[in-house]
């Protein structure tokens, strides 16, 4: 049953992701990326992370990508040449090779790790009973309070920084 949801969403994520990097028009890229975000949001829902899923939409799709679009439109960028004609090959080859290794590294040992890794208390039953959002909120304001505050400071700095940079 989950596969029925997962496979289309995964496919959508991959396709839109690929589109992001091969489409020539930045606006389309951005829109494809929004598509990826939506697909990921769906997958988050599948993973019982409703809060994250919605925040994904609000923050990424609703705010970040709008900013992107904003800038793309404001600067009115031209189209570039097809991507694969632009780059020097060695770099691409190194990149591809490294990426392949990375994939292997990621996938191969992970199974053994997860088996050994300690499991936390928040099983799906617990989460279901308490509510995903409530749990996230509780953790955020207890155990992760300090990072949370730091993040808020980062955001404040970012606001000021962005204003300073973009002025004139």
């Amino acid at each position: 049953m989950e596969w029925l949801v997962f496979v289309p969403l995964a496919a959508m994520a991959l396709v839109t992701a690929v589109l992001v990097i091969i489409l020539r028009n930045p606006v389309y890229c951005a829109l494809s990326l929004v598509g990826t975000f939506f697909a990921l949001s769906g997958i988050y829902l599948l993973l019982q992370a409703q809060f994250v899923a919605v925040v994904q939409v609000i923050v990424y799709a609703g705010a970040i990508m709008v900013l992107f679009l904003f800038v793309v439109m404001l600067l009115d960028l031209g189209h570039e040449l097809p991507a694969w004609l632009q780059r020097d090959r060695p770099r691409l080859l190194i990149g591809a090779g490294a990426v392949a290794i990375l994939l292997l590294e990621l996938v191969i040992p992970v199974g053994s790790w997860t088996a050994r890794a300690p499991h936390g208390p928040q099983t799906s039953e617990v989460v279901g009973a308490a509510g995903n959002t409530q749990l996230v909120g509780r953790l955020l304001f207890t155990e992760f309070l300090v990072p949370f505050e730091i993040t808020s400071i980062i955001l404040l700095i970012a606001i000021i920084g962005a204003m300073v940079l973009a002025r004139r």
Partner: protein
Amino acid sequence: MPEGAFFVIMVAKIVVVFGLMLLSVSYLTWVERKVIGDIQVRLGPMRVGPHGLLQPIADGLKLLFKEDIIPQAADRTLYILAPAVALIPAFISFAVIPFGDQVRLFGQTIDLVITDVNIGLLYVFGVASLGVYGIVLGGWASNNKYALLGGLRSSAQMISYELSLGLSVIGVVMLSQSLSLVEIVGAQARTWFIILQPIGFLIFLICAVAETNRAPFDLPEAETELVAGFHVEYSSMKFAMYFMAEYANMITVAAMTTTLFLGGWRGPWLPPVVWFLVKLYLVIFLFIWLRGTLPRFRYDQLMRFGWKVLLPIALANIVVTAVFVALR
């Protein structure tokens, strides 16, 4: 509940709700014209049908059969896609808004809400935040400077006011201890949140008007300076879709106002659905009234108001509410 029945009921709810919504949208145009007409001491549409009741149908037919112009320099794909992008979020927000209590029908207990998501409020915001795409993309894809400016303005405006909008309802969330709209309505069994959250309500209302790009916040389509804003190039059915999106948004926002602050479907004597509709239309009337009464903001005033007035007040409201909740 058997799975089949669930499915049937679900489909039925969706069909009924969206059907009604489409109808409301089309007749909202008539309502608006009528109310504005009254405000301006004239009659409004009177020719098509009694009191112009068939006017929306006539308008729809006219728009349907008009020539669909796509400008030469436009980005065709996006140009076509944009109105749909605008319309869809406007409609799907409604999925989580409860418009009545449970009813028993055909032996089934049916919630009068399409789906009760435990993060319904966030869902609405998430979807609402997408509305901006339709406008921005439409404005950009038209490849027209007025359209682009309108689009950019609208995106800036919507992002700005979305902030205050979101912050204004935090008080409600704190009081109801839930993000589910059904539970928020449930929490208003004794007191409506408009009583407990008058400031939150006011901010929400103002931001809601801004979010829907309606007067006095209709800068994106300010005729006097931008001709018609982001949809200046649009015609025919695509134009109709933008139009519908605006009114659908209005309904959604009004429904949200009702749900969050006015006790939702709650009320004495009358059936819940009726109460819900009454409150909904009262809010919509308020919107139209505002449009008939207030002049348009200047753009800098608008931004300043959003960031320097509404945002701090909303934050203060949260602090006060938090103290209140903590002390309770």
